[in-house]
């Protein structure tokens, strides 16, 4: 089973995201900020990371930069999931090594479409879901 790390400082968002991502067939690990997320990644690289931008301690963008410089850190598919919806933020995230970008609010269809886009889930799974 593939693992998805859900990084968000809001427990409600994590809960909603967990439900969606689990329904897509992933095992979910949660982290409240970038530092906690890095600890998880050092232990075992997840296949997918759903990443908030604005968080205390270490934000999503800083986390992404650190992750991509880590050994094996280029492997996870990183999908931003943030209230930052400006094109400047999107451009910065994609330039910083993100694979996809979700603008909050989000729903199952959006997460599914984005995961499919980066090849985390196959088309058939999408049709079956």
């Amino acid at each position, binding site marked *: 089973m593939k693992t998805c790390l859900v990084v968000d400082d809001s427990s409600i968002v994590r809960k909603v995201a967990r439900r969606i991502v689990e329904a897509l067939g992933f095992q979910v690990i949660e982290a409240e900020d970038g530092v906690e997320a890095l600890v998880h990644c050092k232990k075992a690289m997840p296949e997918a990371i759903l990443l908030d931008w604005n968080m205390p301690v270490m934000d999503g963008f800083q986390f992404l930069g650190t992750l991509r410089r880590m050994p094996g850190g280029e492997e996870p598919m990183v999908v931003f999931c943030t209230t930052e919806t400006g*094109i400047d933020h999107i451009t910065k995230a994609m330039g910083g090594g993100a694979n996809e970008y*979700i603008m909050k609010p989000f*729903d199952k269809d959006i997460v599914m479409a984005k995961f*499919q886009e980066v090849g985390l889930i196959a*088309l058939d799974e999408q*049709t079956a879901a």
Partner: protein
Amino acid sequence: MNPTEYEYLRKFLKDNSGLDLSADKQYLIESRLLPLARKAGLSGIGELVQKLQGGARTVITDVVEAMTTNETFFFRDKVPFDHFRDHIMPEIIKARAAKRSIRIWCAAGSTGQEPYSLAMCLKDMSAALTGWRIEIIATDLSQEVLEKAKSGIYSQFEVQRGLPIQMLMKYFKQTGETWQVNPELRAMIQHRQLNLLHDFAQLGTFDVIFCRNVLIYFDQDTKINIFNRLARQIEPDGFLVLGAAETVVGLTDTFRPIPERRGVYKPNDPRAAAAKPALAGAAPRLAVMAGR
């Protein structure tokens, strides 16, 4: 809504849009028409039916539009667009090398996501198409839907359904909460109102026809009739692309499926199709359609 009203609406929709509702679609009618009735200051479906029976023109249009408008998204089902990019277009580009012109028809263009998706595919392969004349004609029954398609303005939700972020960055401009398709892409598409039940010979012939997720709403006779008329608007080496739940198989010999490309069909040589007896079930119905 009582059974008489339901039957009236069923027949009304069949006659005016070809929409073929089965006997158990009351919920669909209620969910779509109740808001419309309320908006028009009517008490409910019953009063709406009375208005229709009275021949109120604007109400007729509103009802047809409310019932035939469907949610769609960019690159819907993904695979047909992969086929378009990797298989259909390379073949057409080779075949039209001398003419350097391609015509594409989105026969159920809806709010524009499909024609714009095709336009994005074509833009991405623009190196192979320099100096080519490309026409994309998007048609839909509903004027309201066409206006939206023409504007190319989509909500944040809409641009996240099926549209890769790279495409959003490349082909859209953000204006507050909404995103608009850039002018260059908008200029590639002509939007026209068209009812597939009516004659569409005036559109001319096409190399590729996308006719997805609209025929499912029609009954068998109507489907056959539309397929046969589509066959006259497609180049002999052209392609027809249908929705995932649609097929020509068992309905007409005018098109044949391409086995390894799900949803993609090629026209049969009309003489060959005529020489071969039509499917037993389909033949009498074809005769009926011809006599109308």
